């Protein structure tokens, strides 16, 4: 399941979408709006995306992850629009036969998603200022030469 949605994320549904009798392990990652970054206070976040490209990029990342680990099922849901404190902006779920692969694949997917997928976050600080978060560095295109696949384990 890949979804980009304006609605609040149903994390249980995301987890259940990767259920399988073939999987012994599922990892669900949920990213949510944190109140403090250092001593700066966030009121809410707002996400914007390039929807069609974002969905294609997420699919490419899942395909690439599937060459690195033996993934049973995988789902990625990203919320866009306004996301209040404590609300979830992203949920990534991965199921695999053994647990090591599910932890590694889920962490890798979240890392890569934050580099490769055209979604942008705007902070509304308690000071009233807004700020588009643009991490240092430029967008890195997805690597075309796949790494040597690792064994899922």
């Amino acid at each position, binding site marked *: 399941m890949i979804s980009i949605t304006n609605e609040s994320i149903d994390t249980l549904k995301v987890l259940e979408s990767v259920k399988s009798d073939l999987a012994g392990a599922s990892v669900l990652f949920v*990213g949510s709006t944190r109140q403090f970054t250092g001593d700066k206070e966030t009121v809410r976040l707002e*996400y*914007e*995306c*390039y929807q*069609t*490209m*974002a969905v*294609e*990029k997420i699919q490419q990342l899942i395909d690439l992850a599937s060459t690195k680990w033996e993934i049973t099922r995988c789902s990625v849901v*990203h919320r866009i629009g306004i996301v209040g404190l404590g609300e979830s*902006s*992203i949920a990534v779920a991965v199921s695999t036969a053994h647990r090591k692969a599910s932890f590694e694949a889920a962490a890798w997917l*979240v890392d890569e*998603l*934050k*580099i*490769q*997928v*055209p*979604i*942008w*976050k*705007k902070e509304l600080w308690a000071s009233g200022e807004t700020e*588009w*978060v*643009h*991490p*240092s*560095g*430029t*967008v890195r*295109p*997805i690597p075309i030469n796949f790494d040597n696949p690792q064994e899922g384990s």
Partner: protein
Amino acid sequence: MKIQIKLFAAARELSDRGEIEMEVDDGIQVGELKIKISGEYPKLKDLILRSAVSLNREFATDDNVICEHDEIALIPPVSGG
């Protein structure tokens, strides 16, 4: 040829529009397009230096040639998750 370039996030806000239209020479490369946008939209210049361009929803390099009906977007550094 006439092309449209989608703008997102800070690029959209700085230019106050979600898409810009430009007349460019046939065979223009991505790097040349970035310079041309920076010239016509000086407010975007700093951000363009740190941004990528996508052609048909795939990241492009500066030497990629733009074709007439390509779907073009300026991609500021992303911050999803």
